C-alpha cells in the first residue's frame, strides 16, 4: 500500500514537493517506515549522511497530531508527518 509522508524543517530539503509517497507492506511499523525512507533517500541522495541522520533522529506524527511510537503499526493508507529535531522560539 501507499502512504504519504509530509516533510517539515530540515527534511523539506529531501524533495521539491513537501509530500513524499512511499510503498510499504501492510502492518509496517514506524521503525520499518524509517528504514523505507532511508532506502528512498539512498536512491535519491546517495551517501548523504546529513539527510540520513535527520531521519534517524526524527519522530513521526499521525493525522491526529500525535507523535507515534516506533512500534505503531500503519495498517491503512494514511499521511504521516516527519518531525525532525525542533528548536523554535
Amino acid at each position, binding site marked *: 500500500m501507499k502512504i504519504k509522508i509530509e516533510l517539515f*524543517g530540515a527534511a523539506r530539503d529531501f524533495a521539491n514537493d513537501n509530500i513524499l509517497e512511499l510503498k510499504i507492506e501492510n502492518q509496517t511499523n514506524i521503525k520499518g517506515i524509517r528504514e523505507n525512507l532511508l532506502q528512498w533517500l539512498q536512491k535519491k541522495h546517495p551517501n548523504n549522511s546529513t539527510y540520513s541522520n535527520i531521519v534517524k*533522529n526524527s519522530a513521526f506524527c499521525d493525522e491526529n497530531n500525535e507523535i507515534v511510537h516506533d512500534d505503531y503499526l500503519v495498517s491503512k493508507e494514511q499521511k504521516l508527518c516527519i518531525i525532525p529535531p*525542533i528548536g523554535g*522560539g
Partner: protein
Amino acid sequence: MFHCDVVDVAKNKITLEKAQAFIESHKCGASLFFIGTVRDNNNDKTVTGITYDSHDGMVKKSFEEIFDEANKTLQLQHPVAFVEHAKGYVPLGGISVVIAVACKHRAQVYEFSRYIIEEIKKRTPIWKKEHYINEETSWLDGKKIEAK
C-alpha cells in the same frame, strides 16, 4: 483565557497591540510581555534573517497543553495568555514570538511567561533556517521529540 496562533508573516503581522488588547483584564494586577526577535549573530556567523517552519496543528496543540500545565503547575490566579509564533521569513530584528501574560499578582507573571517559552523550546515543533550575509542558509540543530 488563552489565545494562540501560528502567524504566516507573509500575510499577517504579530503585533503587541493585539496581545495587549487580549490580556487586559480588571481581575489582573500584573502583565508581562516577552518578545523574541531575530538577532544578528549565531555560532560566529552573521545572520540576516530566519525562516521559521511549523507543523501548525501540533504547534497549537502544544501551546494549549503548555498553558494548561502552567496553570496547574504554578497554581496561577486568573491566568490570561496570548502566544503567537511566526511562520515564514523574519528579517533581522523582526518578531519571531510574542508571549503576553497576565495574572492577579506580579510574581506569577514572571514564572508564567518563563514557563511558556522554556516549554516551547523543549517540545513545540517549530524549525529555524538561518540566512547568512553570504546568502548561505542552514537549518539549525534541534532537540529530538519523543512519543509520550
